[in-house]
């Protein structure tokens, strides 16, 4: 038993003080560690089965074993040093309280790329503008879902977006077509390229509806620097 305890102390020391200077390590630190360790084992810290406690965790890991940064859980952490807590931005508390239940349900898995269950996807989806083209970056091919046939011009993007049936951005388009009137712009036909059409259809099928466009509408995202010339 005593050997076991000593072993724990040592692993604790090496795990927690990677940056501690060597000459500080002796008796004082050891005493401190033993007493802290005693406290923490009472708090069942040792029951937590994650071997890589101090290492960076991937988002995948977070999915299965979410780490809680609220101060109340500090006890379960090996040490409070070098760890930041949500509580220190008390905005969290007040905003959290205000949120409706749908939002609360989402937040635990909100950090994954495709986190939302189907029922959330279908309800509550906010409006979106047209999708811009997705040209292939250097080193990418069309198999990766991007456009190889592409010209980096305003005209190309405009025509590409005109192919889509989507909400017109009246703030930044000089004239938005009347919803009832059919589109009579000839430029569309000049771009009627079979490949692009097919690509567009595929893209929209794959990415719609956009799961990120759900939840409360925030009064945010003023793009800074537009009115300061």
């Amino acid at each position, binding site marked *: 038993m005593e050997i076991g305890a000593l072993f724990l102390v040592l692993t604790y020391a090496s795990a927690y003080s990677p*940056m501690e200077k060597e000459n500080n390590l002796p008796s004082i630190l050891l005493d401190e560690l033993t007493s802290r360790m005693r406290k923490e084992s009472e708090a069942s810290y040792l029951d937590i089965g994650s071997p890589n406690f101090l290492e*960076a*965790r991937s*988002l995948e890991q977070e999915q299965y074993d979410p780490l809680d940064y609220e101060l109340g859980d500090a006890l379960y952490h090996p040490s*409070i*040093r070098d*760890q*930041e807590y*949500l509580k*220190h*931005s*008390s905005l*969290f508390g007040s905003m*959290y309280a205000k*949120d409706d239940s749908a*939002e609360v349900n*989402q937040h635990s898995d*909100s*950090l994954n*790329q495709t986190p939302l269950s189907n029922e959330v996807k279908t309800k509550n989806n*906010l*409006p979106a503008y047209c999708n*811009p083209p*997705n040209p292939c*970056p*250097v*080193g990418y091919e069309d198999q*990766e*879902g*991007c456009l190889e046939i592409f010209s*980096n*011009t*305003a005209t190309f*993007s405009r025509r*590409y*977006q005109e192919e889509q049936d989507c909400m017109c*951005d009246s*703030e*930044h*388009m*000089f004239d938005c077509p009347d919803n009832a009137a059919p589109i009579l712009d000839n430029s569309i036909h000049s771009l009627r390229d079979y490949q692009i059409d097919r690509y567009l259809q595929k*893209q929209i099928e794959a*990415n*719609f509806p956009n*799961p990120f466009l*759900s*939840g*409360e509408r*925030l*009064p*945010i*995202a*003023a*793009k*800074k*620097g*537009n*009115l*300061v*010339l």
Partner: protein
Amino acid sequence: MLFDQSTKEKSSVFQTNLIHTAIQQPGFLRVKRGYKPLKVENLVKHIKPHNDPTDPYFPLQWYLKNTGQNGGKAKLDLNVEAAWAQGFTGKNITTAIMDDGVDYMHPDLKFNYNAKASYDFSSNDPFPYPRYTDDWFNSHGTRCAGEVAAARDNGICGVGVAYDSKIAGIRMLDQPYMTDLIEANSMGHEPNLIDIYSASWGPTDDGKTVDGPRNATMRAIVKGVNEGRNGLGNIYVWASGDGGADDDCNCDGYAASMWTISINSAINDGQNAHYDESCSSTLASTFSNGAKDPNTGVATTDLYGKCTTTHSGTSAAAPEAAGVFALALEANNELTWRDMQHLTVLTSKRNSLFDAKRRFHWTMNGVGLEFNHLFGFGVLDAGAIVALAKIWKSVPPRYHCDAGSVEGAYRIPSRKSIILKITTDACKDLSTEVKYLEHVQAVATINATRRGDLELFLTSPMGTRSMILSKRVNDDDSKDGFTKWPFMTTHTWGEYPQGTWTLEARFSSELPQVGFIKEWSLMLHGTKEPPYTELSVLDPHSKLAIVKKAHENQLKL
């Protein structure tokens, strides 16, 4: 006792028996701080000879090399050439531009584009190419990207601050409404591939909004600093805002966060820009437009393969800072998110930055660090930050001390100030003791008949006074007030927190107003050990030397 060099006087001194010993004091040079031009030659021994980039827009990039073009002040720039000369150009560092997309097909950007780390949250696909609008509104992200990583010597546009670094595009601003999910996923996107996140957005700068990150976003930021970059913490760079003198960036919960480095801007002659907001959470400044000469905007890449000379606002300032941090990370890739803030504090320069309206002066805090309410600790100096990053030793562990609180209903009178005090031992003898400060938060719940007329000041035990809330003429709120709002100050960086802190609240108003402070609690964040003991001082006039000396002297007491 001071003598001149004459031995005659020295010998005469000994004629009286009262004097025991006399020491000849040699004369030495005292240099005025802050105005000393950085000599890279003093910091690094073998500098390769360097030429200016040949890119056609480089002569217009006064923020990189200010030769006094267009009425600017020569040498008032980011001092990037000094960093480049040391061999640092941002290699293997990725900065994510969280914005309206990036023209990653731009010939000046395409080879510096990190496609793997990019994403388009506005249309849910991996390719953040900007959406066309008739007014070319969505050029913002492309412009920011060019400031960081436009390629060098390729005959196109100008050159980025870290021209060998990579940029990732995160398209997240371009939909009719913002959601918490978009923000959270953007700020938590690929935290081990992305080193630095640059943001030029936030709550509306209308001078009456008090808002900040919602819960998923807040979680993403905390996770980013705790776990990103394989545990070293992501660097979040924030534009402090374009609301002008009528707004206060402490009311923007993103800029005011401890976990973001909030950047303000100065124009080409050292004045603050007319659109600059100010707040005590600003850490440092870079450059942007605003001089009378219209050719003093920020020259960078533009949408559809073009170039521009008129990028503007504090949103142009934040990416410059991101570029400088990319240089520092190349110099030392072991820097934590806190190391970066310490480096920023220690190497930013007062230079010749000044408040055009003479409201805010440069002040020295309790350990000799000069700060200004508008500019934080001054303008970033790429040469200096890189030189110090190279020899940097990671700062000791950080602790969070709940230093106490005042609760009740304290009336703020119409014409006078109310002063509340918290006396603290800064968690002495507890596991959370803080002896050397980093950030300080005054978390307050206050209401007022007119919120915008309220002014708040926090004074440290060492006498440093931070204006943690300034008057906002347009804010006519009388209902919400502030609820547990964390007002943050960086001005007390390096100070010792033990003693009495005061919060002063008052109205700046023509009409009679009334308000109540319901709660004020003080959170101290910093280290138990002196932060710079392991660092060697290469330059005796540097800020590092001054603070380190102050800390050593205090330990002797």
